């Protein structure tokens, strides 16, 4: 299997800088997602790898070999498009055979291989259907089988699930991952859906304005965002303004409270104003019985909003630390009312400044 390396890729469209010295390495057999907001250059990067777009400068190496001077039809890469890419005049089987047909493989080999792949994506029974007779999810499965048929060196997917229903989307992303692991194929996956990226990737590259802000495992990206952009783009994050009291001891002042936090001593000095981050699931809320005094280890807060999210309810709280969001179990949230006073605590060690390395 092949590695992919993007080196200092730059692409401008007029005044728009779609890619700004983009650097990315994908190991052999690895599944890497490009995650970022609309217009950050994900598609442009992928299309440059596929050969449908060219960089103004930079290099693309696949298996160590520069592919930029190869035409797209000689790159032997599998690409799955967002939607509507199946040839409407061919059945599922004929679509899957297409790549082998233009490679002049014998009919017998072609249909055998197509049958295997349709089986792999669970559509053996639908092989004689035309694309218009298939659901959106089935069409994308066929598209996946079609590009796997040519045994591509790498697999490129550009938001392949974004045109599908939420339920099918979840099911299919797991299937894409299962097949990718089964074949061990190097995969570059473009999405703007963070849940999708975090759930299926070996590593996630968060992009913004044509650059990669941070690349790491889903747990790293979620748990240790390194830039303010990543912190606010991935998941929900509370931001608290704080002043460093003692960088050596890891203490900051936030409103009236002095908090123990994980600060990297080297990067802050006493008196610095820093932004601290904490996820809603690390903010705990305690309902107080009527007339009960505030326990000393809790901060006082007032419930400002309650948003039911299924298993958890997101609670908006106004506190002396600032506005906070907390995720509490929905059964516990039943005891909370808007404007009620609650006790708030932040899980030890979960309040962080950005991880700097």
């Amino acid at each position, binding site marked *: 299997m092949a590695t992919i390396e993007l080196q200092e890729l730059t692409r401008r469209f007029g005044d728009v800088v779609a890619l700004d010295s983009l650097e990315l390495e994908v190991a052999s057999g690895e599944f890497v997602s490009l995650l970022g907001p609309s217009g950050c250059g994900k598609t442009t990067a992928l299309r440059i790898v596929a050969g449908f777009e060219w960089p103004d400068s930079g290099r693309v190496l696949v298996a160590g070999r520069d592919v930029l001077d190869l035409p797209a039809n000689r790159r032997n890469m599998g690409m799955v*498009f967002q939607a509507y890419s199946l040839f*409407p*005049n061919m059945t599922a089987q004929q679509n899957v055979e297409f790549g082998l047909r233009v490679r002049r493989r014998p009919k017998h080999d072609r249909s055998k291989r197509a049958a295997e792949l349709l089986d792999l994506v669970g559509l053996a029974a639908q092989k004689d259907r035309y694309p218009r007779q298939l659901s959106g999810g089935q069409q994308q499965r066929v598209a996946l089988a079609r590009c796997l048929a040519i045994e591509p060196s790498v697999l490129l997917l550009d938001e392949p699930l974004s045109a599908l229903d939420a339920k099918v989307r979840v099911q299919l992303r797991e299937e894409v991952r299962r097949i990718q692991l089964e074949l061990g194929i190097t995969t570059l996956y473009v999405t703007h859906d963070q849940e999708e990226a975090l759930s299926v990737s070996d590593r996630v590259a968060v992009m913004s304005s044509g650059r990669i802000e941070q690349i790491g495992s889903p747990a790293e990206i979620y748990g240790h965002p390194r830039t303010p952009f990543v912190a606010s783009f991935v998941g929900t994050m509370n931001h608290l303004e704080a002043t460093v009291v003692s960088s050596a001891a890891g203490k900051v002042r936030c409103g009236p409270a002095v908090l123990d936090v994980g600060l990297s001593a080297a990067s802050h000095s006493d008196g610095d104003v820093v932004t601290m981050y904490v996820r809603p699931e690390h903010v705990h809320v305690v309902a107080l019985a009527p007339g009960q005094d505030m326990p000393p280890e809790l901060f006082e807060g007032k419930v400002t909003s309650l948003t039911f999210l299924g298993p958890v309810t997101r609670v908006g709280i106004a506190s002396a630390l600032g506005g906070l969001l907390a995720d509490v179990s929905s059964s516990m949230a039943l005891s909370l009312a808007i404007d009620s006073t609650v006790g708030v605590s932040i899980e030890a060690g979960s309040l962080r400044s950005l991880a700097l390395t």
Partner: protein
Amino acid sequence: MAAVGTIEPAAGEPSVGPPSVGPPSEGSPSGSALQWRRGARTWLRWIGVVPFFGYLAIFLLIPTGELVVDAFKGPTGHFTGANVSAAVHAPYLSSFETSLELSALSALFGGILGVFVATAVLHRGVPAALRPVVFTFSGMASNFAGVPLAFAFSATIGTGGVLTGLFQHLGVDLTTLVPLTSGVIGLSLVYTYFQFPLMILLVIPAIDGLKREWREASTNLGASTISYWRYVGLPIILPSLLGMMLLLFGSAFSAYATAYALSGSTGNLVPEVIGNLLNGNITVDPQLAYALAFGMIVIITVVLVCYSLLQRRASRWLR
């Protein structure tokens, strides 16, 4: 008939069908006033198209009906099949053959040339600014017919034409190579001049309907441009292309002025023969003219039926 004809009705008609209006809503049990209002509203929906159907009746259906009836009338007004029988036998049968041949050839030439120009213009590498230029040219050129077109061709490659003179210096006689006034080939070349821009106008939407993803997917899978067109592009738009070439066929079949301007009263195309029979350059026989016209109507009807069948087939994959 006017000397400067343009493409005659056949080209415009096929897109015209009765508007699809759902079944008139049945009155609900909630009272006759409501029912009446619904009925009135159904009527209102039709009012807009009334002038159009009026126009259709007065200028198409009534004359056509009259013509068909006249085609079966003898000089004294009795019923006879003699006119129609004469129309499909020598010497008139050869007019039909010539007309069909000319229409088919010019549709083929114009169709193929039009497709090539349209694909070239729509190619990714070609600046989009060129499109409106080509559209404008096509709109103009597809209406360039009759005397001006005949003159333009005569002045270029006719006897004493500019190019003819140039080629004479090289020892090539263009007038025998491309005879404008005699033979179907020369005339179909002249017709191609207005056929191919018409094809461009017709075919651009169909080619635009080919999704970029199909092209890119086929390239990604290793196909060359030729393989793409062979296995994907062409099979998808072929029914549309054939349908549009049928329209070109129809427009050539009923065109009159260009041929007349080139060959005068000696022409042997069905419309020319009809003209001669009506205005009596050789003999006057209006009944026979009606019978010939009836033959044309039958052919155009067949063309339109084939066209709508192809359109239905085309809409399977496009749109």
